[in-house]
């Protein structure tokens, strides 16, 4: 065997290898582009294989020769066919190339059958025709790739350019082969040289094709990582603080640059506060992408959802061009970029939120300081008279000897003392209402009579200032607390008198309000309130400097704040219209019924029973829920009022709440929001039971479950039973196992865990811990990282490997500073790592509040996560969603 034969054979083997790769690639990822690529390699492989076969079976020479050349002729046709997947190719061109292929092949068979001599004119003419065919068709294909590359960017562009170059190279290889074989004549030195050169050229072209159309995983990963790395660098270079918008803009720009998309848009970038993503969003992601990968032409819109609780509706939409090539690669890359952008945006919006929180806290702290300052001012004013006059009396002197002066001084002291008492009472009332502890005693109240009495009692003040009070009263009876309603009317009325000049007019109207309630209107012709202050006059001690709707000289500065609180405690509303120099008009609307009387004490419940609070205004629905719950052994509190429900949540601390949405006073959404805002009620699980079908909103606002009426008994009780983890609503004891050599540790964790209803088990070393975990089946395991007998990582692995303990949530506690390292090692196998310290307990508490074992949909969620991270090739391993364990 000569050197050139050896070279040829090894080149052929390399070529077959490439063909095999393309075949495997096509088999693994079926698609028209890969199929065409595979066909192209098949053609040339047949051509290459023929001489080898000929060596083994010489009798077949002629047939083989036809097969070789025929297969070679097919190559340009296949290349053009490939182009047609990428950009439109004229039909006539495709047909002409196919026709030329047939003609040339048939001609070849004819020539072979008649047995023309080498270098005969006929053969040379044929060879020239074949050469023209090659140059023309492969040239057209190369130009097609080139044109396609011009319309694309990033990786697609370089891949198409490679394809164009490879096609041209292939045409050159064939030209060299034909030129050498036919023109120089077989067996000549020139022919052999041409044959080897053609093989080398073909091999280079083949590698180019492979890189363009079926790049090996490693190559794709390198390219993606390079883009991903640049992206992260650019993300980090973005200015921090304020907004996530620059992140989305950068994402769009990067995806536009790196993919073939003609339109890239971030949809659903609005944040839903406190949002929790619906299960199954990941499932949707895959479905959409799969649909897009299928064959078909025309512009396709592909959606890559954000897998983020913060943007439950967030997604990136890409319009990919007709004849999209490399769709999977574009999508894989896009997924990586989207994931990185979403993580960055989450971090950014967390920072923004933290800034806002700090600002809120600072504002609250400033408001508190202002309140204290105002309070100090208000207290000192009457104290000034009390102390000053009493001091004058104590010092004796001539005033003390004059009974009239003494009496005047005593009057001043007394009236200042009364004023002080008013102030203290108002402050207490305000504090009581704000804490939800005001006792309303609702009675059937004749509002007309009440207004008349109140006006009569205050008339002398108005008379002193020559003010006329006109009444326009309708008879209205509502259910309300008499003394509190009088306080409301009196406050507004005395303000009206106080802030209206001598000779002004005051008008009081009482009318039947909406739903049979009462509407009080108290208007004056006083000095009015500046528009800028209208929002703030209901705040305690609000005093625009130097102006005084709530000025201190008669009132306490708390009147309007208290009035509003009293109105709202009745489930009513207060509003004000005012114009400077013209007058003010306050309107109070009170509801007809005090079923809303928030502050009834909750009925007693048996302490040994788990308690469910039912907030439902429809009596029959309430009755039904009560029957279901009591039948299952729950104690039931029921109220038709949202406000009442909130008050009872604070006072009775039920273990769970069933909440209707359509309520007479404040709607269920409001109840849900308020309950989740209030630290005292935040951790009480709330399930919505309503005809309103908006599960997404309910879950977003913090509901643990959502039922659309009519609701049947079984699912409801099952859902309640599922809450065993964090509340006392349970049919069994819930336990936490503390594996910690520190004797003090269990005591510390008890502080957090026992209020959540856990029984705390202890183990001082790993071996005991493992045994107890198996036998006691705790609901939660806390493992210290420094165990005397066993590596904690090993312990975690053992617990995970044992079927009995595999699904128990585990937290690892570490010395401060070790947490990130440990977390990285245990990524995904445990719920979290706690660096020891006060924050650790807080983190655990937060987790307990949000963790819900979710038997329904948990498995699906986990599967979706896995798929998603496969789609995102090269992406960092996604942190499994907590709670999917």
């Amino acid at each position: 065997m000569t050197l050139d034969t050896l070279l040829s054979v090894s080149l052929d083997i390399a070529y077959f290898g490439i063909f095999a790769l393309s075949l495997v690639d096509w088999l693994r990822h079926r698609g028209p582009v890969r199929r065409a690529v595979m066909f192209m390699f098949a053609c040339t492989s047949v051509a290459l294989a023929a001489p080898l076969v000929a060596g083994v079976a010489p009798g077949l020479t002629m047939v083989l020769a036809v097969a070789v050349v025929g297969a070679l002729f097919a190559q340009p046709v296949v290349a053009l066919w490939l182009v047609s997947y990428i950009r439109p190719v004229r039909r006539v061109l495709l047909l002409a190339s196919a026709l030329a292929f047939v003609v040339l092949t048939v001609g070849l068979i004819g020539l072979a059958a008649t047995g023309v001599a080498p270098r005969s004119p006929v053969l040379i003419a044929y060879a020239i025709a074949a050469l023209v065919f090659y140059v023309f068709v492969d040239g057209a294909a190369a130009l097609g790739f080139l044109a396609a590359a011009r319309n694309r960017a990033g990786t697609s562009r370089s891949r198409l350019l490679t394809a164009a170059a490879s096609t041209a190279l292939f045409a050159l290889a064939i030209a060299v082969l034909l030129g050498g074989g036919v023109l120089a004549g077989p067996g000549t030195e020139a022919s052999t040289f041409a044959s080897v050169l053609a093989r080398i050229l073909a091999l280079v072209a083949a590698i180019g094709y492979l890189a363009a159309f079926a790049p090996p995983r490693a190559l794709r990963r390198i390219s993606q990582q390079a883009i991903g790395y640049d992206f992260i660098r650019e993300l980090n270079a973005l200015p921090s603080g304020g907004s996530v918008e620059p992140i989305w803009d950068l994402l769009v720009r990067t995806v536009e640059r790196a993919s073939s998309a003609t339109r890239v848009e971030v949809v659903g970038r609005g944040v839903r506060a406190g949002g929790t993503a619906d299960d199954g969003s990941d499932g949707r992601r895959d479905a959409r992408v799969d649909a897009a990968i299928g064959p078909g032409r025309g512009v396709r819109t592909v959606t890559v959802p954000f897998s983020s609780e913060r943007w439950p509706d967030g997604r990136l939409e890409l319009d990919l061009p007709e004849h999209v090539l490399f769709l999977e690669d574009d999508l894989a890359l896009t997924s990586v970029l989207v994931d990185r952008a979403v993580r960055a945006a989450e971090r950014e919006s967390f920072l923004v939120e933290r800034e806002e929180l700090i600002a809120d806290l600072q504002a609250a702290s400033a408001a508190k300081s202002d309140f204290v300052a105002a309070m100090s001012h208000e207290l000192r004013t009457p104290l000034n008279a009390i102390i000053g006059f009493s001091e004058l009396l104590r010092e004796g002197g001539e005033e003390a000897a004059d009974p009239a002066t003494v009496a005047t001084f005593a009057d001043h002291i007394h009236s200042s003392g009364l004023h002080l008492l008013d102030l203290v009472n108002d402050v207490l009332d305000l504090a009581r209402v704000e804490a939800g502890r005001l006792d309303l005693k609702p009675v059937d109240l004749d509002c007309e009579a009440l207004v008349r009495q109140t006006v009569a009692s205050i008339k002398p003040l108005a008379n002193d200032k020559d003010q006329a009070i006109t009444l326009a009263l309708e008879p209205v009876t509502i259910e309300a607390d008499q003394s509190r309603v009088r306080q409301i009317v009196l406050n507004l009325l005395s303000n009206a008198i106080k802030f209206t000049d001598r000779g002004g007019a005051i008008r009081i109207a009482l009318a039947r309000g909406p739903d049979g309630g009462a509407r009080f209107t108290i208007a004056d012709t006083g000095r009015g309130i500046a528009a800028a202050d209208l929002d703030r006059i209901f705040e305690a001690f609000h005093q625009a400097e130097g102006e005084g709707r709530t000025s201190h000289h008669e009132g306490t500065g708390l009147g309007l704040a208290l009035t509003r609180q009293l109105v709202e405690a009745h489930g009513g509303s207060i509003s004000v219209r005012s114009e400077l120099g013209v007058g003010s008009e306050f309107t109070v609307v009170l509801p007809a019924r005090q079923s809303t009387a928030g502050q009834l004490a909750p009925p007693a419940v048996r302490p040994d029973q788990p308690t469910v609070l039912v907030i439902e205004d429809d009596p029959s629905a309430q009755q039904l829920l009560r029957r279901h719950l009591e039948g299952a052994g729950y104690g039931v509190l029921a109220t038709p009022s949202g406000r009442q429900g909130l008050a009872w949540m604070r006072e009775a601390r039920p273990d769970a709440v069933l909440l209707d949405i359509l309520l007479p006073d404040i709607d269920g959404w409001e109840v849900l929001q308020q309950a989740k805002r209030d630290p005292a009620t935040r951790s009480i699980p709330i399930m919505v039971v309503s005809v309103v079908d908006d599960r997404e909103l309910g879950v977003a606002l913090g509901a643990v479950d959502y039922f659309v009426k009519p609701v049947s008994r079984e699912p409801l009780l099952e859902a309640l039973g599922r809450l065993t983890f964090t509340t006392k609503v349970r049919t069994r004891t819930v336990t936490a196992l503390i594996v910690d050599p520190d004797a003090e540790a269990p005591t510390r964790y008890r502080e957090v865990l026992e209020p959540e209803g856990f029984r705390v088990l202890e183990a001082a070393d790993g071996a005991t811990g493992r045994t107890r975990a198996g036998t006691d089946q705790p609901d939660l395991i806390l493992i210290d990282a420094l165990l005397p007998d066993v590596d904690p990582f090993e312990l975690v692995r053992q617990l995970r490997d044992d079927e009995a303990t595999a699904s128990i949530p585990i937290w690892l506690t570490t010395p401060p500073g070790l947490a990130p390292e440990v977390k990285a090692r245990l990524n995904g196998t445990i719920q979290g790592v706690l660096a020891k310290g006060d924050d650790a307990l807080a983190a655990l508490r937060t987790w307990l509040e949000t963790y819900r074992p979710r038997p329904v949909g948990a498995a699906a969620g986990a599967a979706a996560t896995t798929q998603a991270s496969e789609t995102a090739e090269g992406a960092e391993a996604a942190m499994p969603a907590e709670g999917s364990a």
Partner: protein
Amino acid sequence: MEVQPDAPLVLAVEDEPRNAALLEAILGRAGYRLHVAGDVGAARQFLATERPALVMLDRHLPDGDGLDLIPEIRASDRLGDVPILLVSASVLPRDVQTALEAGADGFLAKPVRVKPLVDEVRRLLDAGATSRKLAD
């Protein structure tokens, strides 16, 4: 002590009647004449024609902040050197600072005690007399 007709005249700007009465009792006993203005407007009116020996200002008045009177008094040739004493229930350090920065000569916190009030009034009146003498 009988208040003499030629006793120094003090203007007190105070809207709370009981506190005005208290100032009247304390300063009357100390031998001063007192004129009470219930708001900024009334004080302005009084100052347009009269020249008190001392002005006592409260801050939260029905028609404005007593502090607003200070620059007006200081800008006037006729009244410019009248001592000004703030008597206020706003006693946070920042309030005191605001008052003194506005140009008040003294600050007393409510509730006021009899002796410190009288001492302060006396001090300011003496200082006022001295500075007038020096000016003459």
